[in-house]
């Protein structure tokens, strides 16, 4: 065994050199490090040409090919080739593609991945004057900016709002949605005591993605995650602790379950009136209606804040980015530009129901008239996106895990946020 091992090491050296030199010759050195990079030069005039390879996830991936026919019509020299990628493995696929340089020209990129892929040197800075920043929801635009440079264009957005059973609320004496934190608490209590709900408000007790429900309370309370420059974490603040305290009180008081719900459990429970309210994104309208909730039985409302002003929710969604390894970048950006035109955005909404990231797309049609949609539109104006840093997923993972401890054990909120801060500081921004 021992001699075998020594000799294996010799071989190991050779193989390691071989493997690494392969990496080296293929990729070469680039100046990595997003931030402070200049925006790309303006794209040329004229029509797009050549083949534009696009990756898109989920429903977008399924419909985008047909949807792009209009672009191909306007640019006869160009062909759009869309590959659908499942969301659950999109991150690995993109990471691998960037590592090897085998990227498509354009891809839909989850807003929270922008920091990582930009820092890896995979994404091209957005060309000057491609789009006007002011056209987009501010929170959505934030998600494209890594270290002060924009690396893409927001495509569609989603934000979290309060869903509640309006018929049960009436029974409990609530004709309107709660506006302040105190009201929300009383509302949840009334839903249990007067309307027979098992849980007044379902919140996520930690675990993956719970920060998307917890942080809106913190943002609404004036807490921030980083300083203005985006260099230092500022999680350990009285505002954050207060918000976490408020959030976990729902578990302590039995207003929210502390266990992870099974798939479909929330929707069917909402239909039965067991869960009177929850916080989620626009897709849940379809899900609860599929579960048998009639449209007049429920309503959505913006996130409450401590003092009754409109709360700040989380804005997520997808950005469009062009890769450094694209061999048709100019046309690729033109395609991105086309997708972010207001008319295209409206048309895409009509096709798949994705909420447009461009504000003016909300001025006409269903988006302007539908009351429920207007709630989302209003919420988006104040919605915040988390810092676009490469380490965000890990920081979020720590926030999730500490939120879980605060929800399920007797960890005090003050200590919890201090721990979040020290974890985040240790992880760093990665920029």
């Amino acid at each position: 065994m021992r001699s075998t091992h020594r000799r294996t090491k010799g071989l190991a050296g050779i193989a390691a050199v071989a493997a690494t030199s392969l990496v080296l010759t293929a990729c070469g050195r680039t100046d990595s490090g997003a931030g402070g990079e200049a925006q790309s030069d303006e794209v040329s005039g004229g029509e797009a040409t050549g083949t534009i390879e696009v990756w898109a996830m989920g429903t977008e991936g399924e419909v985008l090919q047909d949807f792009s026919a209009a672009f191909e019509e306007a640019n006869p020299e160009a062909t759009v080739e869309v590959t659908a990628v499942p969301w659950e493995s999109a991150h690995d696929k993109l990471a691998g593609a960037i590592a090897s340089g085998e990227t498509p020209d354009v891809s839909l990129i989850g807003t929270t991945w922008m920091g990582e892929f930009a820092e890896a040197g995979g994404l091209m800075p957005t060309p000057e004057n491609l789009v006007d920043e002011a056209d987009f929801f501010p929170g959505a635009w934030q998600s494209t900016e890594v270290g002060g440079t924009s690396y893409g264009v927001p495509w569609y957005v989603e934000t979290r709002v309060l869903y509640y059973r309006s018929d049960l609320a009436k029974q409990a004496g609530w004709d309107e949605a709660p506006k302040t934190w105190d009201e929300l608490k009383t509302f949840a209590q009334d839903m249990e005591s007067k309307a027979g709900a098992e849980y007044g408000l379902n919140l996520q007790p930690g675990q993956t993605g719970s920060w998307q429900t917890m942080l809106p309370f913190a943002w609404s309370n004036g807490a921030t995650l980083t300083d203005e420059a985006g260099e230092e974490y500022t999680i350990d603040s009285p505002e954050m602790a207060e918000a976490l305290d408020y959030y976990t009180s729902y578990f302590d008081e039995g207003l929210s379950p502390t266990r992870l719900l099974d798939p479909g459990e929330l929707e069917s429970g909402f239909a039965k009136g067991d869960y009177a309210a929850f916080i989620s994104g626009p897709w849940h309208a379809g899900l609860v209606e599929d579960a048998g909730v009639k449209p007049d039985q429920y309503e959505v409302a913006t996130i409450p804040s401590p003092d009754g002003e409109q709360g700040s929710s989380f804005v997520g969604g997808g950005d469009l980015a062009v890769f450094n390894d694209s061999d048709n970048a100019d046309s690729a950006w033109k395609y991105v530009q086309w997708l972010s035109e207001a008319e295209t955005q409206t048309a895409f909404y009509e096709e798949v129901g994705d909420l447009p990231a461009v504000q003016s797309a909300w001025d006409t049609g269903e988006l302007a008239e539908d009351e429920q949609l207007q709630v989302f539109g209003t919420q988006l104006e104040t919605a915040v996106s988390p810092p676009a840093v490469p380490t965000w997923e890990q920081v979020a993972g720590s926030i999730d895990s500490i939120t879980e401890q605060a929800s399920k054990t007797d960890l005090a909120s003050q200590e919890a946020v201090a721990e979040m801060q020290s974890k985040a500081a240790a992880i760093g921004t990665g920029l």
Partner: protein
Amino acid sequence: MAQTLDAPTPPATPPTHEAVDHGPRPRSKDGNVRTPKWLYAVMTVGLFFVVLPFVWMVISSFKPEAEVMSIPPTWWPETITTSNYSTLFSKLDFPTYFANSAIVAGAVALGNVIFCSMLGYALAKLDFPGKKVVFGLVLGTLMVPGVVTFIPLFVLTTNIGLANSLPGMILPFLAGPFGVFLMRQYVLTIPDELIQAARVDGAGELRIFFSVVLPLCGPAVATLGVLTFLTSWNNFLWPLVIATSEDKFTLPVALALYSVGQNATKYGLLLAGSVVVVLPVLAVFLVLQRRIMQGIAMTGIK
């Protein structure tokens, strides 16, 4: 379920069945060893628990989506529908995905059988410098957790131009350490005299391998072939990252793509898809199970 419970004695199985079952050394069955009735009862109860989740999967694949997700869950479908299957077959370019999966899994199985038995034979029966190093190296990697090699392997594969190609899904898995271990153990059980006799007759070492040793390896080859086929057939993450265009998708990749929607998994589709994916594997196993048993029995894993 009920059927399996109360039908223990139909004369369905011919009496000859057992003799085949015992593989290489047929034994006389003179009724000396009795099978107690309670054993069947215990086995049936065990069987019930083991196949229950599987049966539920098959039954539920015939439920409409809403019923799959309903709480409390239903056991027998209130509405029986084949819509999950028809959606699956109409939305997916089934022949292509099926062919890709079969080609990849078939090639991986074939390659493992050939390359691993060659090296296995060399390790078991030939003396050569570096033998211990080779064997140590192979066994060592058997124990390395898979997550780790993912990115380096991906960078390598794409850099040698194998991205979005079937060879890119096949080549990295052609030479697995497990196969070498299995084949070596099996070849060890082949008597030295056989090989020695061939040498005396003047056969070269390579010929000895192909015309003497390999034909004797039937059961081990079947075992290795089926196990590697199965692993490759169910492989998901690698084909997913390698295949970038739809004509290169394998079955699990295509299924994941269509059943996992943006914010909610379509469980009905997923269940139907899982049934479809598992059927070919099950068929292969059913056909070859006796040979596999032999292979494992004689591998001398003792």
